[in-house]
């Protein structure tokens, strides 16, 4: 399995009330559970099944991902700037592992 490496692209500073883009990607094979190995055994499913973004203490974006999502799932979404604070990004993997990143955003 690839060691999942998450990455986000967030502007360093934005004006109050500005709508700004967030891009998030994680290096992940998204093993579907539908493939077999050379001995005919099913390779167990292991995908990123969920993604959450929190702005301060508020959950502002959530996505559920399924088997049909390609490797290295990429998400792009928009937020409206309210106040300076912490953006937190959380990827949930089958089996319970969590990968996360956080990012301080300055609202001017």
């Amino acid at each position: 399995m690839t060691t999942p490496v998450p990455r986000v692209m967030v502007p360093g500073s934005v004006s109050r009330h500005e709508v700004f883009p967030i891009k998030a990607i994680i290096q992940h094979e998204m093993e579907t559970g539908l493939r077999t190995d050379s001995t005919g055994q099913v390779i167990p499913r292991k995908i990123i099944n969920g993604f959450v973004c929190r702005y301060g203490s508020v959950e502002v974006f959530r996505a559920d991902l399924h088997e049909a999502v390609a490797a290295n799932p990429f998400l792009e979404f928009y937020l409206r700037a309210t106040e300076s604070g912490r953006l937190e990004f959380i990827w949930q993997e089958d089996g319970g592992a969590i990968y996360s990143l956080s990012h301080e955003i300055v609202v001017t």
Partner: protein
Amino acid sequence: MTNWTRRQICSMAGGVLAAAAAPHVARSQNKPRVVVIGGGIGGATVARYLGDLKTMDVTLIETKRRYVTCFFSNLYLAGLRSLASLTFGFEVLTERHGLKVIHQAATGVDPGTKTVTLRDGVRLAYDRLVVAAGIAFKSGEIRNYDASAAEIMPHAWNAGPQSELLRRQLESMEDGGVFVIVAPPDPFRCPPAPYERASLVAYYFKQFKPRSKILILDAKDRFSGQELFQEAWGRHYPGMIEWLPRQFTGAVKIVDVAARSVVTEGETFKAAVANIIPAQKAGAIAEKTELTDASGWCPVDPVTFESTLQRGIHVVGDSIIGGDMPKSAFSTNSQAKACAFAIAASLTGSQQFPSHLFNSCYTFLAPDDAFTNAITFTPEGGKIKTVETFISKVGESAEVRRRTAHQAVGWYSAFTADVFGEGS
């Protein structure tokens, strides 16, 4: 200022020798005359197959005395093969395969009078011309990336000095550094090669610089053999290779040579070693001869490989609009044979039978783990179309992959003998 194409470079020694050889060419007999510009895989294959027939007078024009194959050069970058083992001369072709080689630049083509002008002013008349121009790089797509930048941030997309430069940089890189590969937009020479390069450099890092990372900044959102590569990266080099698609980075727009960094739409990535593979187009002599269309590549008839823009001139290899055929050495070799038999048919009255176009590539994931594909093509409605595709599968046994890697080495020696002559 940008002087990209190796074929524009003329060595003085080559010029003098060629001038001495040229009168011999000029007063050649009554056989039909074929001139081939470019001694890479396409040009050498056409010349060799035409030369073997012994019914035509065949002259190959190539500036360089030695050709280094791009295929297998990623093994060199990983320290698994010497550059000498990838280097071929033209002696066997001239001694055993009935053709002449002039080591000089072709500076111009006049399709009206059917002549090629060489750097020293000598003109060669032809009945059919083959232009195997290879690739050139599009300038301006990545700001600041020009010929002098390539001496700091090599492309290594023509094998030879550029490969040596990149190898030296990888060898002197400190453990823990980031090797950045900027992968080009389609279409480009050898679609799996940037990712094979990442795999084999990762193999080198794993042994000697295990804390190092490889970051691929791609101009595309997907790539050739992606599933096979990503599965292998997880298995052999966990956590070492990161691939970022265009949709995430917006693609590389600028290089900062002094800082050795690359700049995308939203971010600057600092590299210990940077390998910039730029967007590509047909080689300079193809453009100059007006064989290219607005796409920058050469449209051809898929049966004869005659240019649809210039009658009497054939084009093979990476510089053509190949339809479904990828730009690979194997595709080029296959096109070159069909082209040679088409030229023989038109000049000597031999028959051209329905052509079979193939591509088969071996791609290394590690020295003992390779995958392969096999694709058959057919001309249809003026284009080259895929008939069938077979490709190695994710989850194949280690034994199958080892055998494929072993076959790759055998294939290399047979293939280069086919191109540069038996015994080369």
